[in-house]
């Protein structure tokens, strides 16, 4: 029997939603390993929303505090997680493959001398070993990997593990972490314009390509995204990012972000193989393109052939009516 340590994530003292997915993934492993889920959250003090971990299956919710943890402290947090992981009978340590988790997980794994199965989209236990599926080549293939060392450090791709309510005790525990926050100091986060959602985390992505003709026309997509009421982010193809129309952080594809939203709307994107790789795990794909032979229609669930400048404003209107109804 071994327990699973679920590492939660907070920003500005509030639990981030991706943490619910982490607890859900951790619960699945713990059930298979016959152990408990211990959720660990690091902060300067109490973290609001951390008690929700119990609802998703955490037997224990541990808040580890240090004055230096108000902001993410890469070194201090890695040390705190690794120490906790060493102290218990943990068969696995589960994190989110978020911006923070992608930074933290390798540090923790190295401190534990344990392998990291990163950015996984499925996981289970086979013959006592953790087995995961991870997309490689930007999703053009899936790698099935067995973790042969213990503990298994696993990071979960955001938006893939739908949170499942599995109420457990969620007994709260608080512990102080000694020592300083480390040599690498996060001074703060400069919010993106409009406090925009990140394409990698948004449940809905509206992405544009060269078919938009010029950067200013992305306004059409921003309006469509807004119509979804704060649930959508604007993404972009490599062509328009390389042309400087959109920031690098918006790029979807093999040299950008791989995304798995519930709904992906590709507008004026022909569908180069490296782009398709980045979004093919979306639950539903809609394509709007004037070329009926564009490769994007091969992966799209629903397509509209025609002039995006005519279609998108109508779609925005219709979505607005729907969300305000």
């Amino acid at each position, binding site marked *: 029997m071994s327990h699973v340590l679920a590492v939660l994530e907070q920003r500005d003292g509030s639990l981030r939603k991706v943490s619910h997915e982490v607890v859900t993934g951790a619960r699945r492993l713990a059930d298979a390993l016959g152990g408990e889920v211990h959720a660990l959250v690091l902060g300067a003090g109490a973290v609001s929303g951390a008690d929700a971990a119990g609802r998703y299956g955490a037997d224990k919710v541990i808040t580890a505090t240090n004055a230096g943890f108000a902001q993410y402290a890469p070194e201090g947090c890695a040390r705190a997680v690794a120490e906790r992981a060493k102290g218990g009978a943990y068969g696995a340590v589960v994190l989110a493959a978020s911006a923070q988790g992608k930074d933290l997980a390798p540090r923790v794994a190295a401190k534990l001398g344990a392998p990291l199965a990163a950015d996984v989209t499925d996981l289970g236990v086979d013959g006592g070993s953790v087995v995961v599926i991870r997309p490689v080549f930007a999703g053009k293939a899936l790698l099935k990997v067995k973790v042969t060392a213990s503990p298994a450090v696993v990071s979960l791709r955001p938006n893939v593990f739908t949170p499942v309510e599995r109420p457990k005790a969620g007994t709260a525990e608080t512990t102080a972490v000694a020592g300083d926050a480390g040599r690498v100091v996060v001074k703060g986060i400069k919010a993106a314009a409009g406090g*925009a959602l990140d394409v990698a985390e948004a449940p809905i992505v509206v992405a544009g390509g060269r078919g938009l003709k010029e950067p200013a026309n992305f306004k059409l997509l921003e309006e469509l995204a807004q119509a979804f009421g704060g649930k959508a982010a604007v993404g972009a193809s490599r062509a328009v990012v390389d042309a400087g129309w959109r920031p690098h952080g918006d790029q979807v594809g093999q040299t950008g972000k791989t995304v798995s939203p519930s709904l992906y709307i590709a507008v004026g994107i022909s569908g180069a193989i490296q782009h398709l790789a980045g979004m093919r795990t979306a639950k539903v794909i809609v394509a709007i393109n004037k070329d009926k032979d564009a490769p994007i229609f091969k992966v799209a669930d629903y397509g509209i052939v025609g002039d995006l400048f005519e279609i998108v404003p109508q779609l925005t209107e219709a979505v607005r009516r729907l969300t305000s109804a």
Partner: protein
Amino acid sequence: MKIAVCIKRVADSETRVKIAADGKSLDEAGVKFILNPYDEFAVEEALQRKDKAGSGEVVVIACGPPSSQETIRTALAMGADRGVLLEAPGVPADGLAVARALAAELKDGGYDLILFGKMAIDDYNQQVGPMVAELLDLPCVTCVAHLTIDGGKGTAEREVEGGMEEVEFPLPAVLTVDKGLNEPRYPALKGIMAAKKKPLEVKPAALGTAGLEILALTPPPERKEGRIVGEGAAAVPALLQLLREEAKVL
């Protein structure tokens, strides 16, 4: 300024992935291999930093099969001074094994900076850089999109959900770099000629035991064939109805 850049040979992003007969790896027949795109930003940054400092050395280090020598030559053609190949039959799936081999090579190198691309576009592991930093007990910032260095101190910006995180760190340090940090140069003919004469040392990689075992590499599930809902704006109501009632995403 002495800078190490750790690079990787990867299949080009336009590659159509075919699974090899072993069912566990990429069929390399006809595949074009390139310097990992994120590593190009790391090489470029190293060259610019060395120029700015007025003196120093840029060493490129790869861990991988003998063919990685070509990849190292690409970085040498961009302007790096010398290369080291830590030779292994293949690159293990376990990033920690790779990190151990690199750390052993970097340990006594006296580097001011150790740079990596933020990830390789083949295995998507995104972990070797920070693991090397841990093994060497060096400060590390990942996914650096903007960088200022002043004496022994650096300031970096890295993208996080909804914004840019501002991070301060002391040197020497390990950094993994993101697209947008700079514009990588293309190797000029002169550089390509010069690269042939630059030193490239080959030695076995000290990988140790791997903790990840590949069971299978499979194609992703095919998406079921979709349909064209209609043409032009007239198709919008039908699309919305399908999204609500059939796909149930709205």
